[in-house]
């Protein structure tokens, strides 16, 4: 029987799939493409909100596509973590689609922008809902293909250069992932994550499990831009046009983090003592390398790209400690980070429009020319650095508290120091772009006016408002994150939802 769960799990994929097909078929009709994207954005937001509500009310839900029973068929499954990620994906789709309406780089390539954006949302949403490893791989591929298309939009040499690096390294990581999927299938005889979680403890050769899991973690680590596999990200992200960079920064690395959390909590819950020290090392390295890289750069998008990496480190801290509180911290951190990071990249795009460049050396005087823009930059920037009362403060607090509770003082100390250096980078952008006088020889651009200004600043303001809301009205978000962390730490609900009641 098609229950509500069947609908709610299918809709977040059906809507972008329909949008992708329809906007690809209607390439020559700009107005229809825009209408379809707008309708899809609203529909996706509503559908994902309903999914979150259902998961809060009923716990983990699962649906077997085509009525092929698990573990043989394609299972879609949503717990609190997955549902919230689907909802935030919908939010990012809506925000970038709105911003793109005012972005000249997109307007020149609009025929392809609409189907590619929908395909990206499809791939990301599918990865969050996939209940088996092979489909996770397929959704990664969907995501990759869409992102290749998106990164070359704008079509210059710089974009192609960035795209080649991005494509090569991501293909390599995906191939490693596919190999590890095959090996895991050989070990357990199943691809379904819930089934695999049940069977892994029964395997005698736990060393082989560890080796394959390590391969898998390496693949997802590269996707998540974790130290020492992060180098593809700063080599490519700064070349993409503003809305593309924003949605990449928001979602792509986070899918890698999501997969890391799934694998570690579902497949490696106990008996693998090497996971925690490995994650400790990765978290510390990622935080430090990211934040130092950002401190060294003087181009806004490069600074922001390196900060993606350092922030990923905080999420890995949550995986390393892996208590319910730490996992809750990782979930809250992801939700906060996606909103803030997308917002910063969108603001960077507006700064380029207003000041003509991304280079801090030639920018200046923006605060006097456009104080609203300054304010809209300050909100995500301070939130990223973890200043109260913004969302970043609570996310960092969760992670730090779980670190101190678990007695991981050194890692918590590194996380604190990273926060301070993050503030330094954000202040650098603020002082150079907004505060100092316009450097001599920088031509004064006409201000952004009219509808374009609204289209560009409305999503920025909306995302800023969410940051403030999480910061000031924290309780429901914190309670949600705690429940999600609880669910991740005890995997029974997930397994039962997928496999049904286990027959004796």
């Amino acid at each position: 029987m098609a229950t509500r769960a069947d609908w709610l799990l299918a809709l977040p994929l059906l809507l972008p799939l329909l949008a992708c097909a329809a906007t690809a078929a209607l390439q020559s009709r700009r107005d229809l493409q825009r209408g379809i994207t707008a309708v899809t954005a609203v529909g996706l937001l509503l559908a994902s909100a309903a999914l979150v509500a259902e998961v809060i009310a009923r716990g983990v839900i699962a649906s077997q596509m085509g009525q092929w029973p698990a573990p043989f068929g394609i299972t879609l499954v949503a717990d609190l973590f997955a549902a919230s990620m689907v909802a935030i994906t919908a939010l990012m789709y809506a925000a970038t689609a709105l911003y793109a309406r005012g972005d000249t780089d997109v307007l020149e390539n609009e025929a392809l922008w609409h189907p590619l954006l929908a395909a990206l949302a499809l791939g990301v949403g599918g990865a969050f809902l996939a209940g088996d490893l092979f489909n996770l791989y397929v959704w990664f591929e969907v995501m990759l293909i869409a992102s290749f298309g998106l990164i070359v939009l704008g079509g210059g040499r710089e974009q192609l250069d960035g795209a080649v690096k991005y494509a090569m390294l991501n293909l390599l990581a995906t191939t490693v992932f596919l190999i590890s999927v095959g090996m895991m299938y050989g070990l357990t005889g199943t691809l379904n994550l819930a089934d695999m979680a049940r069977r892994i403890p029964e395997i005698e050769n736990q060393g082989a499990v560890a080796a394959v899991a390590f391969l898998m973690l390496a693949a997802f680590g590269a996707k998540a831009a974790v130290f020492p596999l992060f180098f593809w990200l700063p080599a490519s992200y700064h070349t993409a046009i503003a809305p593309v960079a924003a949605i990449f920064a928001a979602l792509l690395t986070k899918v890698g983090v999501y997969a890391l959390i799934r694998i570690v909590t579902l497949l490696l819950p106990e008996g693998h003592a090497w996971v925690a020290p490995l994650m400790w090392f990765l978290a510390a390295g990622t935080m430090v390398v990211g934040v130092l890289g950002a401190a060294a750069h003087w181009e806004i998008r490069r600074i922001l790209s390196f900060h993606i990496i350092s922030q990923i480190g905080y999420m890995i801290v949550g995986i390393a400690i892996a208590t319910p509180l730490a996992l809750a911290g990782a979930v809250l951190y992801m939700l906060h980070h996606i909103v803030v990071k997308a917002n910063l990249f969108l603001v960077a795009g507006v700064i380029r429009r207003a000041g003509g460049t991304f280079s801090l050396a030639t920018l200046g005087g923006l605060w006097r020319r456009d104080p609203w823009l300054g304010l809209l930059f300050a909100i995500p920037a301070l939130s990223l650095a973890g200043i109260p009362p913004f969302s970043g403060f609570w996310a960092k607090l969760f992670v730090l508290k779980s670190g101190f509770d678990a007695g991981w003082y050194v890692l918590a100390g590194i996380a604190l120091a990273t926060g301070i250096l993050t503030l330094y980078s954000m202040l650098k952008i603020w002082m150079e772009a907004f505060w100092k006088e316009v450097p001599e020889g920088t031509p004064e651009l006409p201000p952004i006016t009219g509808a374009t200004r609204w289209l560009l600043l409305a999503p920025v303001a909306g995302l800023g408002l969410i940051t403030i809301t999480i910061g000031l009205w924290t309780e429901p978000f914190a309670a949600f994150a705690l429940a999600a962390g609880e669910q991740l730490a005890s995997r029974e609900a997930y397994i039962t939802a997928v496999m049904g009641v286990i027959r004796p």
Partner: protein
Amino acid sequence: MKTSFIMNASARYVLWACVLLSLFVLLRGHNEPGGGFIGGLIGALGFVFHALARGAGATRAVLRLQPLTWAGIGLLFGILAGLPALLLFGEPFLTQQWLGATPIGTTVLFDLGVYLVVLGFALAFVLPFMEA
């Protein structure tokens, strides 16, 4: 580029032979080796041969719609094949429906969708190279 007279004259027939063969493979895939993917590739082969002989412009005229538009239509077919289960029969998405005891069902539509997606993407990839 000057192509041989024989190639030029046979292009149209090879094209339609390929399309017919691809449709046969598509339908054969129902219970035997074949199906939308391989069918789409065979179909695309016919169009590529046509483009080699007559130029990509002539092939685009035969196609009428942009290759990517065909792929979009194929994707829509694939989605449509999965929807009746959800909308009418109260079953999960993609549960295939059959017309009574006949072998005709939503799978045929799904396979046709795959066929068009493969054909569309292959041509969207190849034709620009022939124009460059």
